[in-house]
């Protein structure tokens, strides 16, 4: 590295002069040298826009500018905007254009420029103008609305019922969010991993001498250094499972390309990366196991030689004689296949950890990007050997996760262990390439099903054969979630007989982790297959659903797997969507456009059922909340949740405020710190509203009981006469007699300065809380290029009582866009040797503003039988959307005899389907895909 150079520039109006290495990017300069951490890094290849700053009057990507190139420049970051961005910031706040907040500073910078260039932008202008700012949470709906509203306040959709703006937003808009990469204690050292580029093989040489010798390198660890010191790395739910051991670093064999081989600790991240390049590694490659179908039978090529098989789990429910007869002899028997590709969660913020071990106190403190701080604490304790009570985990803001960060990853745990060994502060921020190749993948399922129907199209029974690829190592509860697909496969339909076989296999690929609906495949496969069934029996898919969907008077309904379905509205949501789409009209238009113009329109419908807040999924089936009345009368809620963009600080404050009848502003939520909060489940598996919300209610009830006693003494009335009312505790019979929460807090503190009025509430979920939704969309397929355009998108959903309608819609819109990504764009790919091909956000195509449809919502609020009447709804959007878009494309294609059975439906796949249809049918309706 060449010597340092002097650079002078103006940052946020202030002159700055510094010595930098020429390699330092402007983004790193702003973040590390200037401590301006609003500017985020998420791809480092100019795709995501999170690092957008303004330089000499134009927005640029600060990851693609060297600090020395900003010589003499005037640079502005989100921190410097102050009032300048106020209308846009206010609009983003009002329109819920923010979830995790990681992309927000970039949106502010670019959105501000857009509004300057085009003071009255059209929706198309806004989408084009923000096409270089990726957001993985919002589906862009709130962002596009916010820019429109900032340009023309009269265009704002206006206040919605119970949808207060989010209190997380203020710090995120000011660039004061604290993501893990923003945590940089003095003396922090930086970690980089050496990873295998080979999918399967034996490590024959690992020479670290040159790396160790590089100036600035503090340590290089290999398996020999760390593995013997590591405790159990598995997540809590898998501790007792019989598994091959998971160790920090690959010792003698590698099992997927991306597996960590060595860990370098150095003074800065560039140095650490340079040192990694100096490690000499030789791996004798072996033929990898890549195809999950072939892996089942393969006994020659094994991911784990000692197991004798690649089969990881198998669960079969028996096909009873009645079902067998139906599947053999029913008037109509249809077989269908559905394949879902390998995907990546791809949150905008990658994983990361800053771990610090103090040998004097024996305390290990770690900041993580995690949905589940308490699980991280337990896992770090197990792996590092530091007693749990001496481990503290903090996680203030998390830049999206979607399941990736619910169980603590191998890499974060390895870094924590290395910090313990070194007795130093270590920081590891995952690169995007690591994120897409080594953090955890999603999906990769194959389903083959048989449906038996009577003459009228009523389903008599079905059987699902489900194969899941778990990758090289099991992560989290995924292995337990797989069989659940078969359990809930029949979904919201009256299907009296059902059986399934579930198998999961190991392959030499990145381990499969949790992703938005671990059992989403039940919805995806069933809904795609039902359309296939409808086509096979010559019935409209809407009609087939109408004949089989459960109506309100059939509930509660016991599914063939003995699960009981209740408090759901699948038939109603189906009719809402059909009505909104004007279904008969769409069908007429579809026929007309094909006949008159040769255009291919398709309509798709999918009904999703989301099992949320599952009472059998220990330890995330329960939660604890602590409420404390402060001396000023405000209430603090201490929750074990993590801030991943779900708006927990807002919605849980709403719950507490409503229970205590206090002002929303009088409630503050503290989360993301294991020292401050009681043990709990974290944020995930669509459980916050029901489980954490109910724990909050329980705590509020407990607090009220105590408060009523105290107030009764104050007021000289029996406790039964006291009720909370508009921020005070009042006498039911004398409206004038009341005592404030502050007075009660002071009464308690009279017993001692540290004494507070506080209460703990616990809640354990009932076996199942179902929410449901129906998605409908209309698409047009370009017959020649195979591209797909979504014309309309409608969601009718029932998540019970909504705490905050805009939070609900934001969750759905974000899920829908991930589903669209899965249906059309996103696929993690390997080459024939198992080397990853999708290593960045240019190759792994997550949707931009230009793929995101405007979504029309219909809400039905059927209360669940839980304390608040809520239901989980964080995951269903993605599953419903994937099937819905798939069905619409398949519907369009079917008009010309083309068939598809797998996602993503990229242009080449669609054209192949046209070509196959052309060769099958005597009347080639579609153009051939290739002139050759």
């Amino acid at each position, binding site marked *: 590295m060449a010597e340092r150079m002097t650079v002078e520039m103006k940052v946020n109006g202030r002159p700055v002069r510094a010595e930098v290495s020429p390699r330092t990017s402007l983004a790193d300069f702003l973040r590390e040298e200037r401590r301006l951490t609003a500017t985020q890094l998420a791809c480092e290849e100019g795709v995501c826009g999170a690092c957008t700053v303004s330089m000499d009057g134009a927005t640029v990507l600060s990851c693609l500018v060297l600090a020395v*190139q900003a010589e003499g420049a005037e640079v502005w970051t989100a921190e410097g905007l102050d009032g300048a961005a106020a209308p846009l910031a206010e609009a983003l706040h009002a329109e819920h254009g923010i979830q995790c907040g990681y992309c927000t500073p970039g949106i502010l910078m670019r959105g501000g420029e857009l509004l300057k260039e085009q003071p009255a932008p059209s929706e198309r202008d806004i989408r084009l103008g923000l*096409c270089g700012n990726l957001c993985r949470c919002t589906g862009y709906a709130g962002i596009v609305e916010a820019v429109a509203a900032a340009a023309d306040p009269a265009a704002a959709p206006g206040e919605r019922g119970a949808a207060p703006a989010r209190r997380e937003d203020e710090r995120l808009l000011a660039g004061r969010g604290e993501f893990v990469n923003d945590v940089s204690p003095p003396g922090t050292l930086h970690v980089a991993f050496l990873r295998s580029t080979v999918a399967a093989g034996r490590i024959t040489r690992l020479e670290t001498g040159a790396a160790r010798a590089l100036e600035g390198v503090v340590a290089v660890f290999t398996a020999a250094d760390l593995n013997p010191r590591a405790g159990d790395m598995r997540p809590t739910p898998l501790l007792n499972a019989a598994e091959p051991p998971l160790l920090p670093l690959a010792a003698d064999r590698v099992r997927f390309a991306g597996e960590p081989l060595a860990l370098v600790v150095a003074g800065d991240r560039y140095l650490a990366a340079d040192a990694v390049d100096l490690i000499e590694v030789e791996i004798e490659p072996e033929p990898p196991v890549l195809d999950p179908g072939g892996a089942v039978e393969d006994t020659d090529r094994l991911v784990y030689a000692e197991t004798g098989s690649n089969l990881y789990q198998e669960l079969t429910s028996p096909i009873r004689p009645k079902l067998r007869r139906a599947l053999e002899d029913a008037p109509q028997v249809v077989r269908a296949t559905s394949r879902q590709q390998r995907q990546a969660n791809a949150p905008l913020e990658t994983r990361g950890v800053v771990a610090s071990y103090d040998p004097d106190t024996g305390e290990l403190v770690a900041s993580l990007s995690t949905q589940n701080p308490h699980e991280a604490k337990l896992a770090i304790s197990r792996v590092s050997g530091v007693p749990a009570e001496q481990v503290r985990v903090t996680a203030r803001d998390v830049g999206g996760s979607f399941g990736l960060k619910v169980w603590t990853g191998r890499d974060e745990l390895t870094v924590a262990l290395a910090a313990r060994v070194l007795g130093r502060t270590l920081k590891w921020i995952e690169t995007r390439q690591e994120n897409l190749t080594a953090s955890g993948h999603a999906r990769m399922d194959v389903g083959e099903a048989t449906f038996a129907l009577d003459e009228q199209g009523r389903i008599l029974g079905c059987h699902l054969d489900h194969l899941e690829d778990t990758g090289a190592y099991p992560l989290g509860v995924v292995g337990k979630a797989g069989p659940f697909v078969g359990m809930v496969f029949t979904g919201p339909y009256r299907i009296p007989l059902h059986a399934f076989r579930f198998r999961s296999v190991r392959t030499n690929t990145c381990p499969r982790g949790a992703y938005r609906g671990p059992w989403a495949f039940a919805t995806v496969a069933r809904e795609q297959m039902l359309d296939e069934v409808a086509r096979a029996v010559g019935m409209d898919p809407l009609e087939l659903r109408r004949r089989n969907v459960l109506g309100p008077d059939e509930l509660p309904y016991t599914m063939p797997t003995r699960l009981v379905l209740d408090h759901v509205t699948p038939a109603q949501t189906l009719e809402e969507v059909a009505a909104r789409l004007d279904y008969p009209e769409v069908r007429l238009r579809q026929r007309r456009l094909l006949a008159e113009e040769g255009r291919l329109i398709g309509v798709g419908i999918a009904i999703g059922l989301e099992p949320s807040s599952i009472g059998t999924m220990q330890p995330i089936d329960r939660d604890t909340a602590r409420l404390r009345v402060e001396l000023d009368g405000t209430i603090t809620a201490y929750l074990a949740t993590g801030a991943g963009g779900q708006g927990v600080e807002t919605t849980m404050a709403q719950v507490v405020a409503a229970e205590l009848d206090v002002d929303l502003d009088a409630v503050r939520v503290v989360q993301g710190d294991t020292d401050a909060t009681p043990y709990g489940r974290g944020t995930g598996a669509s459980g916050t509203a029901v489980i954490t919300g109910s724990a909050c209610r329980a705590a509020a009830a407990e607090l009220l009981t105590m408060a009523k006693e105290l107030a009764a003494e104050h007021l000289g009335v029996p406790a039964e006469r006291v009720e909370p009312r508009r921020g005070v505790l009042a006498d039911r019979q004398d409206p004038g007699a009341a005592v404030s929460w502050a007075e009660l807090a002071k009464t308690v503190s009279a017993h001692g300065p540290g004494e507070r009025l506080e209460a703990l509430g616990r809640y354990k979920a009932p076996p199942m809380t179902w929410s449901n939704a129906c998605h409908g969309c209309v698409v047009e397929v370009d017959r020649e290029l195979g591209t797909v355009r979504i014309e309309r998108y409608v969601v009718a959903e029932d998540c019970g009582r909504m705490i905050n309608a805009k939070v609900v819609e934001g969750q759905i819109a974000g899920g829908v866009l991930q589903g669209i990504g899965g249906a059309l764009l996103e696929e993690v790919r390997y080459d024939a040797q198992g080397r990853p091909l999708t*290593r960045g956000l240019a190759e792994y195509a997550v949707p931009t503003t230009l793929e995101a449809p405007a979504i029309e919502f219909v809400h039905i609020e059927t209360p669940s039988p839980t304390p608040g009447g809520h239901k989980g709804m964080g995951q269903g959007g993605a599953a419903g959307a994937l099937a819905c878009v798939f069905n619409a494309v398949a519907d369009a294609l079917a008009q010309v005899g083309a068939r598809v059975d797998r996602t993503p439906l990229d242009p080449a796949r669609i054209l192949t389907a046209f070509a196959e249809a052309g060769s099958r049918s005597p009347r080639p309706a579609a153009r051939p895909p290739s002139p050759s």
Partner: protein
Amino acid sequence: MDFLRPATWEDALAMKAARPDATPIQGGTDVMVEINLDKGRPTALLDLNPVAELSRWSWTAGPAPMLRVGAGVTYTRLIAELGGWLPGLAQASRTVGSPQIRNRGTLVGNLGAASPAGDGHPPLLASGALVEAESVRGTRLIPIGEFYMGVKRNALEGDELIRAVHVPPAAGPQCFAKVGTRNAMVIAVCSFAVALDLRARRAGTGIGSAAPTPRRAHAAEEFLAGELDWDGAGPVDPALARRFGELVAEAAAPIDDVRGRADYRRHALAVMARRALGWAWAEREV
């Protein structure tokens, strides 16, 4: 990695002569990606941003003046200031990355990187641009068709820098079309440009991302010059447009890669070329 910061063009040429290993950097939207993703770190960077004259454009002298677009002219400025004369190039520029990329990235940077997928190449090929290369030894004008030598290789000598690119103003309608894996922020799966010269009655073409280098479809150009009814009113003859598309596709030599398959690329090129011709022709009628 050394960082060289010339103040003038002469300094830049001298530095490049002394350090042929130095990689020139302008907007950095290509070079920095390579560095960040560790795809090879240059031994030295030669930052051309301080050379202010490079961010200007002007007209060349002579009987057929061309637009001389300096190496520092960003896509954003090209679209805003030169779009009237160079509609095809402006259309292609609008599909480059995002507004932030276009604010910083330059057309000449695209030439330096010589990626087969660069969006600027097809319209430059279609309109017959010239690359102004200069070294301490002198200046030469390289016809664009001779500039691309292989995947990410161009005709520059080790001591040469691109000072500008000379582009003839449009002599008729121009059109650029591109397919990507999504609608924005994409590297082209394949792209195509056509430029009609209504006076000379000929058409130029450019194919992107479907061969080791960007290239013209010569046979398709000759076909149009000979077969298109240049005086005809109404839309272009569908059979002729289809044949044109086929000839364009035949000129390509695509491969399978992570973005797309060879057969899809060839097919899409035929479709895009046919459509682009139709759109360009329709514009002429207006």
